[in-house]
């Protein structure tokens, strides 16, 4: 390719970071930390909703067997809720990543020294 040899030089680009500098920069560290704290929080919520549901079924049978309608038991909406909750958590992650994570990734990528 012809364009690999010539790289346009913009003013102010001289501050570009090496890989090492970028990885060690507070911004990158903050991004990684934020990414895992968001996903770990969501994973914890997934555990709470799924295992909460399963342990209720196993340990509190009378509670989940109570009728909420003519015959419908509480267990039925709980089961549906466990599924909806799992999906809602993925929705939350996508919204967060699209709004906060991706722009920060673009910003940090721009700081990287062209290689």
């Amino acid at each position, binding site marked *: 390719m012809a364009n690999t040899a010539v790289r346009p030089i913009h003013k102010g680009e001289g501050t570009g970071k090496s*890989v*090492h500098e*970028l*990885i060690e920069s507070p911004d*990158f560290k903050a*991004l*990684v930390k934020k*990414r*895992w704290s968001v*996903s*770990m929080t*969501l*994973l914890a919520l*997934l555990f709470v909703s*799924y*295992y909460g*549901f*399963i*342990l209720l*079924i*196993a*340990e509190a*049978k009378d509670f*989940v*067997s109570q009728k909420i*309608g*003519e*015959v*419908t*038991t509480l*267990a*039925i909406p709980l*089961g*549906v809720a*466990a*599924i*909806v909750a*799992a*999906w809602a*958590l*993925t*929705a939350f*992650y*996508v919204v967060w*990543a*699209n709004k906060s994570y*991706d722009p920060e*990734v673009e910003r*940090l*990528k721009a700081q*990287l020294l062209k290689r």
Partner: protein
Amino acid sequence: MTLTGAIQQLVLSQAAPAAAAPMQTSLGSPTFMSILFFFIIVSVTLIITYWAAKKTKTSSEFYAAGRSVSALQNGFALAGDYMSAASFLGISGMCALKGYDGMIYATGWLVGWPALMFLVGEPLRNLGKFTFADVVAFRLQQKPVRIAAAIGGVLTVLTYTIAQMVGAGTLIKLMFGLPYEVAELIVGIVMLAYVLFGGMIATTWVQIIKAGLLLFGVSLLFILVLSNFSFNPGNLYAEVVKQYGQKALEPGGLVTSPLEAVSLGLALMFGLLGLPHILMRFYTVPDAKAARKSVFYATGLIGYFYIIIPIVGFGASVLVGRQFITAIDKGGNMASPLIAELLGGKAFIGFIAAVAFATILAVVAGLTLAGASAYSHDIYVNVLKGGHATEEEQVKAAKMATIFFGIAAVGLGILFKGQNVAYMVGLTFAVAASANFPALLMSIVWKKFTTWGAVWSIIIGTFTSLGMIILSPTVWVDVFKNAAPIIPLKNPAIFSMSAAFLAGWLVSLAKPEADAQAKFEEEKLRTYLGVGAE
């Protein structure tokens, strides 16, 4: 008759009042409608395969559809890759026969998807090329890690394939009346045609079509069932209670021991994160953002499916009747086809039977591609050829491995005929959660992870889960017919997965690997920013 004609007929026929059991069924003999729908589905998918074959020249096209699949397409394909005939026919059958327990079972099959998104989805897309072993081996010594990862990968794919093929033979025999061996051969040949000629592009479209047909068919069943109860689930539940007592809406014997329940939950949740045929789909999308979105779509589609399928099962239990369902198949697997026939006539049962067939084809095609890549990409290209193989050599090796795997699938399906393979699915998820997942996660997040840490984590995970399942009630008692199990726990994941993490951790700490640590910066750059991703 055209497809729309058939659908019209089946929408009209819902006006007919649902007769109470006993009913007549065309199950077990090939009907005109079922054969027609079967040929329509197979013809359309083979035409797509022909089109895909022209676009499948390079290894990236063969394994990863040229990374050109959109997030929504991949969401459908992931759903199509995951929703097996067992979950379609099995969960509705379980709701029909056991009532509420079927719903508990259904929720377990969904919980892995959010975990997949939070833990490995994006890193996998950024770090790998074609297989999950690419990620594990990213900064480690290729040969030992690739060989170990291929063992874990092939074992999970093979056990899952056996479960699918045995189920396929049995179901097709029940629905079409075809001999078991003929059914195995048809599945094997059609599936091989997709994968061999159309690679990942054809497999993706087969999975998208299957997911669409399955969701359409089950949605229609759901509406037809509810139309018999003035669209009020409460009325349906009232009828269930009238016929089978309040117990049918209460949790029964599925979850008894909390330890067992937690362990099963771990296997279902983290097993998904170690299923090679699912992980492989992440390489078909252009970037990490699309990977993330595709999991969101897949979770929505699969969740919707698991929410409506119990209604179909409950509907079958009151409209067809448990007695009649078990008379056709003791396990209840024919609940969905039977309620389809009752409410939609021969056209609808033909459609549902053909969809079940397509379901099996799509899942087995995905498995074959994953099994083939574990050999051709991980072992042949990266171990035997030291990472230097020409495009031509790579595609040829992939196709040879596909043929070999396809023959193995049919052979194993026939070999295991009539065997109790119920434990195979549990085994797949336990091995995936214990052998593949811990090494994958540690390689992404832990700087000090080493080559031998990965190898030992995979080996310990594989053999602990395998050994514990063989000694558990599901194999030791149910298959080997011993009086009592050596290990009472049916689901070993809580122990085998912990053992794999522990092994990876201890071995890595015992002998640090400077090379691997030095490359971690490069890996982080790629994991989080996608710089250098393929």
